[in-house]
């Protein structure tokens, strides 16, 4: 087990370097990091030159990248366009987005798995067809459309909720945005669970469990569900990174001041440090989530053992 973890951690390094380098290049080579510092006007050449020297932008890109990564690993993410430390922005933005992501994952697991089990056990019945059609519609409607429509219905027409979220973003206000963020993944979790349950329902161990005279509930929860959850866990693990990235759209619709908001501002104002810093953390989250999922396999499926 320990060896497997070390091996996986080593494999993560090239992916991490590659992904961050790619973003670093996109931001630094294609955009002009200095342009954002002079506000709306163009920088005059002398100031631009001085700023370039000050930030080390006159050196080759690979040197800049190494310096940046060196700083990042000592906890220094640089300063944003308005002089705020990027780490400070992160400490206000990440808790909000983590809350939002948690709500989304809870929706996915609770609603998605339940619907999946119900439809998987009743394959071909009207409930199954209905839910399947519904998931197809949810998958097809882009998140920003779902979000705007729900905001219009619940927030404006029926006045059930506040259409935009306050700066503190407490759990209660994040419920609808969380559901919107989760919607597409929720539909996928439903379909995955359904397929998996329907497949495993005919397996030998389920037949044995039924033959032993176990109550139906125990067969479904303990035997069938546990074994059917493996692909679902993989999906949700990979989904954490997607949700945090996808939060850009949801946070924009509901005016939530989280990671997506800061990133969007950073991109609009060409604040290189903010963008690269946040993306670096998001890539790390994605990689760690995938590692955790692989380790969870062994817990869910006793047949898998890491030497």
């Amino acid at each position, binding site marked *: 087990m320990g060896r497997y973890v070390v091996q996986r951690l080593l494999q993560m390094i*090239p*992916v*991490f370097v*590659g*992904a961050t380098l*790619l*973003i670093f290049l*996109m*931001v630094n080579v*294609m*955009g002009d990091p200095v342009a954002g510092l002079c506000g709306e006007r163009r920088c005059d050449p002398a100031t631009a030159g001085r700023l370039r020297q000050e930030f080390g932008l006159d050196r080759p890109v690979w040197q800049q990248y190494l310096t940046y990564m060196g700083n990042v690993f000592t906890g220094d993410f640089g300063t944003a366009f308005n002089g705020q430390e990027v780490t400070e922005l992160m400490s206000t933005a990440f808790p909000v987005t983590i809350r939002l992501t948690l709500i989304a994952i809870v929706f996915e697991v609770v609603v998605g798995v339940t619907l999946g089990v119900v439809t998987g056990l009743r394959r071909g019945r009207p409930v199954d067809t209905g839910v399947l059609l519904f998931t*197809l*519609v949810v*998958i*097809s*409607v*882009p*998140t*920003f*459309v779902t979000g*705007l*429509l729900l*905001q*219009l219905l619940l927030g*404006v027409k029926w006045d059930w909720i506040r259409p935009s979220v306050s700066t503190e973003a407490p759990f209660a206000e994040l419920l609808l945005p969380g559901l919107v963020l989760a919607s*597409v*993944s929720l539909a*996928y979790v439903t*379909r*995955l669970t359904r*397929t998996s349950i329907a497949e495993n329902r005919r397996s030998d161990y389920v037949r044995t469990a039924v033959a032993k005279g176990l109550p139906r509930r125990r067969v479904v929860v303990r035997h069938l569900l546990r074994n059917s959850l493996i*692909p679902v866990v*993989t*999906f949700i693990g*990979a*989904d954490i*990174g*997607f949700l*945090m*990235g*996808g939060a*850009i*759209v949801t946070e*924009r*619709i509901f005016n939530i001041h989280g990671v997506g908001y800061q*990133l*969007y501002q950073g*991109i*609009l104002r060409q604040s290189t440090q903010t*963008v690269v810093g946040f*993306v670096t953390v*998001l*890539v790390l989250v*994605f*990689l760690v989530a995938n590692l955790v999922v692989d380790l969870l396999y062994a817990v869910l499926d006793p047949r898998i053992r890491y030497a």
Partner: protein
Amino acid sequence: MPEQHYEPEPAVAGAAIGGTVDVGVEEAETLEKRPKGRGGPGPRDRPRSLWSDAWRDLRRNPVFIISGLVILFLVLISLWPSAIASGSPLKCDLARAQEGSRPGHPFGFDGQGCDVYTRTVHGARTSVTVGVLATLGVAVLGSVLGALAGFFGGVWDSVLSRVTDVFFAIPVVLGGLVLLSVITSNTVWPVIGFIVLLGWPQIFRIARGSVITVKQNDYVQAARALGASPSRLMLRHIAPNAVAPVIVVATIALGTYIALEATLSYLGVGLKPPSVSWGIDISAASPYVRNAPHALLWPSGALAITVLAFIMLGDAVRDALDPKLR
């Protein structure tokens, strides 16, 4: 981005092999499915291919027919939008801003006083162009690289597979914001280029896996033993049997690419006004949503139906190519 999200369907790769399974098995399955005598006189004499079998299934599938008709309609109006909406989508009259439905203007007017019906009809062209071209690019790049990696293996396979890992680690909407925000050109090309850049790893993985599965089949080994060259093996024996999963995933991906273009345009980095795109219209309508919800609803509906049609088409094609899933 949404297109990373597909149900992993490992069985699809297996479907490719179905095409060469001995005819006896296929006939047995067919007989089970359909009552005797309805199969027509012809097919009994010669073995049917996976493709003709799939086509027979598709023609009877209402989902395929409906989504196919919707897509046909979309393609037609994106080729000749003026046929059903003669006005210019850029001709706006501020005096009529936010007005509701009127005779001659069935969808009403948006916040700028533009005719929502005309803009919605003309917006189809952007979506269909981006969807089709991006899918073509992704499919060609991904399947060529994937097939080569799967066929030859070795160092290049490892290198390319690691490269795909890197691309998968970047959230797509985020990558789009970063990359497209620095591009000033207001055409569909940067968006298409971006989708191809971040989309090919998905098809790469599918094609690679599919080629590796097919490569191990006896008929490929036999051809190799008979001295067939790698290119002949690849083109004549492997490719035709490995292409099915790629087609399925590409069809579904087309729908998600359309959604992605709209999302990027909604965020302000895809296409920008004065281009006509559903994403732009939805974004422009959202501040006025209290007074003019119709300006939001019509382009949203058009977008949703378009994406739905492509995803349903992909689902139907998958069912037809992989009868085991039923």
